[in-house]
């Protein structure tokens, strides 16, 4: 059954993607159908908890299994996929086999990721997910910006993936030859730290944690349903999931857990600030994703696996809801600028209401889901460090602030002239009708319900009890206060440039990594053409004199090489032909001299 769980979306997705335009007609329906099937299998798997494996490479097996954490994850992933695909049916631009196929592959890869029991399989799925994110973000391939955004996403996450490769090698070196995730904490000696570091880097990169957050901002170029899936149950969630899964490993090293916790907390706080500073709804949501994932990372760092998992699931429902709603508006109104979205919620009540529910959950308002889950995380953090707790609490407050800011804008009375398509409007024509359709509405409502109620999940599944009730109350009160305060000042909130540009990390990355690499590539290419390729040449020329080298430098690179050898050889050849003067007496003289030399050699060397 577990094979089916991953094979169904992967195979269906691959088939759809390969079929291309021919399958466009059936693609939306097929996508929803497959996603439904996958959800059904996922639920069944979550109940039966199967485990399978097969040999992969020498000594390393490809294993899949569903345990408590992954049971939660498979259902979340399948559910989010279904919701997003169902909603996307309404958008004519996305009714293609390419979209449905890649989405299913994307989800399938995530399913493999969360069920993988060995590092090898995890890595495979992990990378495929990255490639699919490229394909989906660059869905509008004719727009150079979209393609560039896809590049950024793929390359940034792949940069982090290097950590996974290293971790795999280190695990083998450290004695965990099977690369089973469960065996990783047993790696010996320094290799344990290498494994951990590699995994942490990979996870943080995938989850868009600081300092690799910027790719998420660019990823907003993709269609909104893509964002919805990418931000909720796949991709960014994968990093958090991996850290939660490997919490024992983090703990085993001693340094990794606090480091991860601090990175998560810092991301939660700083990205919260970034979110507050955004004027673009999708950018705001993206930054909030980073921030919220930060809580999960924090949870992994402080050992609050249950809270982190709950946070992940609740956030998945909330964020997919919010992105779908934002996407609906983008399609309908042609803009995602907060200033131009005034009155959007009033005109489209259902979207507005569901969006508000989601935002409220995101804000951490009691008794909605994220209030509970976030506080489970914060409680776990409090056990470790008060400072961590304080930072987390501040971040939670920020989430209330930016959620309120978004809601405030969309409920403002409309300004029709702006809605018609302002200077910042995207290319999507305003007023394309209601794309979401009944299926889409159902998806929104369903997600809203989940976003509201999933807070109870941890109590239902694991019977958890809030460890510090006062903490729950405190954060709830703070959230309410923050919401109230923000509602009043929302219009006057500034957008500091540093925060609005996502802390400027991308520009820094370009300056520090991308441009030097490109420059080095150019330099090496020149080196290759000019120096290495002509090394042979130079060797030949050296025999006739360095002057010629300078003389011939101007010649074309490709031709120059062969001609260069030729030049050197020609000179030598001319030299070799010089004795052949045609004059017999000179032959005699040369022969006599040569024989004399030979005789000398024979006499002297013995």
């Amino acid at each position: 059954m577990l094979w089916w769980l991953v094979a169904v979306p992967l195979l269906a997705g691959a088939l759809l993607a390969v079929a291309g335009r021919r399958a466009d007609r059936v693609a939306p329906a097929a996508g929803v159908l497959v996603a439904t099937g996958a959800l059904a299998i996922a639920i069944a798997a979550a109940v039966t908890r199967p485990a399978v494996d097969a040999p992969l490479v020498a000594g390393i097996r490809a294993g899949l299994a569903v345990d408590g954490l992954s049971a939660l994850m498979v259902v979340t992933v399948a559910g989010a996929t279904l919701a997003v695909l169902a909603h996307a049916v309404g958008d004519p631009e996305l009714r293609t086999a390419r979209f449905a196929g890649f989405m299913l592959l994307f989800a399938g890869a995530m399913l493999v990721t969360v069920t993988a029991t060995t590092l090898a399989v995890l890595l495979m799925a992990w990378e495929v997910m990255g490639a699919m994110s490229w394909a989906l973000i660059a869905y509008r391939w004719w727009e150079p910006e979209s393609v560039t955004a896809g590049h950024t996403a793929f390359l940034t996450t792949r940069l982090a993936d290097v950590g996974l490769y290293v971790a795999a090698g280190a695990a083998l070196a450290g004695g965990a030859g099977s690369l089973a995730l469960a065996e990783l904490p047993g790696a010996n000696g320094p290799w344990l730290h290498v494994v951990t570091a590699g995994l942490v880097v990979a996870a943080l990169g995938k989850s868009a944690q600081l300092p690799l957050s910027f790719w998420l901002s660019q990823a907003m170029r993709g269609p909104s349903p893509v964002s919805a899936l990418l931000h909720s149950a796949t991709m960014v969630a994968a990093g958090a999931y991996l850290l939660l899964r490997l919490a024992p490993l983090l703990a085993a090293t001693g340094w990794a857990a606090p480091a991860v916790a601090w990175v998560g907390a810092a991301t939660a706080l700083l990205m919260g600030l970034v979110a507050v500073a955004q004027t673009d709804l999708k950018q705001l949501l993206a930054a909030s994703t980073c921030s919220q994932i930060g809580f999960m990372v924090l949870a992994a760092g402080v050992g609050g696996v249950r809270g982190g998992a709950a946070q992940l699931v609740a956030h998945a429902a909330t964020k997919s809801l919010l992105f779908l709603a934002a996407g609906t508006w983008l399609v309908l109104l042609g803009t995602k600028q907060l200033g131009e979205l005034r009155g959007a919620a009033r005109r489209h009540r259902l979207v507005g209401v569901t969006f508000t529910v989601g935002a409220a959950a995101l804000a951490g308002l009691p008794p909605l889901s994220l209030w509970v889950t976030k506080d489970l995380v914060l409680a776990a953090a409090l056990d470790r460090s008060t400072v961590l707790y304080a930072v987390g609490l501040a971040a939670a407050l920020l989430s209330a602030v930016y959620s309120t800011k978004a809601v405030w804008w969309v409920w403002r009375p409309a300004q029709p002239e702006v809605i018609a398509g302002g200077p910042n409007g995207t290319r999507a024509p305003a007023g394309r009708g209601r794309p979401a359709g009944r299926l889409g509405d159902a998806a929104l409502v369903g997600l809203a319900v989940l976003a509201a109620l999933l807070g109870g999940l941890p109590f239902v599944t694991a019977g958890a009890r809030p460890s510090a009730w006062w903490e729950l109350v405190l954060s709830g009160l703070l959230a309410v206060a923050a919401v109230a305060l923000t509602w009043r000042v929302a219009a006057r909130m500034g957008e500091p440039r540093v925060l609005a540009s996502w802390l400027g990390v991308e520009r820094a990355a370009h300056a520090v990594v991308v441009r030097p690499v490109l420059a080095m590539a150019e330099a090496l290419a020149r080196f290759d053409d000019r120096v290495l390729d002509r090394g042979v040449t130079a060797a030949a020329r050296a025999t006739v004199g360095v002057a010629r080298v300078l003389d011939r430098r101007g010649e074309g690179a490709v031709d120059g090489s062969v001609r260069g050898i030729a030049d050197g050889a020609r000179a030598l050849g001319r030299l070799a032909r010089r004795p052949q003067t045609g004059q017999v007496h000179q032959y005699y003289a040369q022969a006599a001299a040569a024989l004399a030399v030979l005789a000398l050699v024979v006499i002297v060397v013995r």
Partner: protein
Amino acid sequence: MNENPAALLPELLLLGAAVVGLLMGAWLPRHRQWLVRLLAAAAAGAGLVATALAAVRPDEVVFGTSYAVDTPTHATRAIVLGAVLVALALSVDATAGHRRETEFVVLLLLGGLGTILLGGANDLLLLFAAFLLASVPFYALAGWDKSALGTEAAMKYYLSGAFLGVVMLGGVTILYGVGRGVGYGALRDGLAGAPLTAAGVGLVAVVAGLLFKAGAVPGHFWVPDATAGTPPAVAAIVTTIPKIGGLVAVYRLFVVAVPPDVLDRPLLFAILAAVSMTLGNLAAFFQNTVQRLLAYSTISQAGYAMMAVAVAGRAELAQQALLFYLAAYAVTNLGAFAVLAELPRARTLNDHRGMARRHPALAVALAVCLLGLIGTPPTAVFVGKLAVFTAAVDGGYLWLAVLAIVNTVASVFYYLRWLAPVFRGTEPDPAAMTRAGTWGAVAAVFCACLTVVLGVLGGAILPSLAAVPAPPHGE
């Protein structure tokens, strides 16, 4: 005395054919002279049979101590006779019906005879006499067509030979003086206690004459001029046949007559080999006339073969390598010249453009022969080079092998310079692509096939070349 003429059957067959052929030529009408050629071919064929029969008999030294009938001699006989046969075939188109056709054949036979004697000579005086006999007919062949260039070629060939012959005689005299003898056996004893300086000078002087035969530095000056100035058939003969005798003679001289400690022979020949191959290759680089290009290539080939001489006695493969290399070289070089003999008007590289279109079989034969000269497997020269390189490395001359490898790569350049226009799709020059007849093509294809067959089945021959001539007195 052991003056058993039967031991010299192949030589006597050649001589007889030469004499009878000359007499026949005096009586035959001009267009019946092919009978002389037939006689010569029959003699050479019979000689090959006689060689094969002699090869199974035990080695012997006949006519006093002056002539050895042993493995190198058998090999020389076989290679030279085979080369004579091929030369007879490839020269048909150029010489048939010519008023000096008979003389051409007779001179070829006499030159071949001299070359064989050169290879078997076991006495300095016989060596020089064979040198004369192996030289004079070829001088005449070079000037055989009486063209302005041909006579100039003959003059240069002759003057080179005369000069180095004098030097060689001087060397013989010195060796006689210090070694008290001219027979190789006596020399080995005499040189053992001889003043080394004089012996060294004498040996170098003798070697000078043999290097002239081998067309190796410093006796190589005639090679390009004589090759470029003569018709392809003659060029094929003078660049192929004398080399065989010269190199075998050098080998025999140093293995049999010279005690190992008289001079640093390996170094001497390593230097000669290195200089020959390098000079030949470099000078061939930018030649535009194909015969001149091949001429220089033969100089470098002599250099490769000399590597085996350098390590003779120090590497067990040396003799097999030398003899097999000579056979492979002879076949391959004759094949390349046979193509030229078939297309005598194509003098320059550019004249060969588009040849693959007009004469595909000939082009393939040329490609096989030139790639063979490079030493591409599975041709005969590859096996030869493999054996030579192995012997050189085994004999402690790794640097020489490396240099030979670099030279081989360099040689690829000029051979490909020739092959490239051959296989280019451009329109051929009809005048240059005029065929002279069919025999050249037959010889070319035969040689191309033979070089591949020798390359593939060469292993069967190698063991039979292994028996090293025993130094006198059972040392």
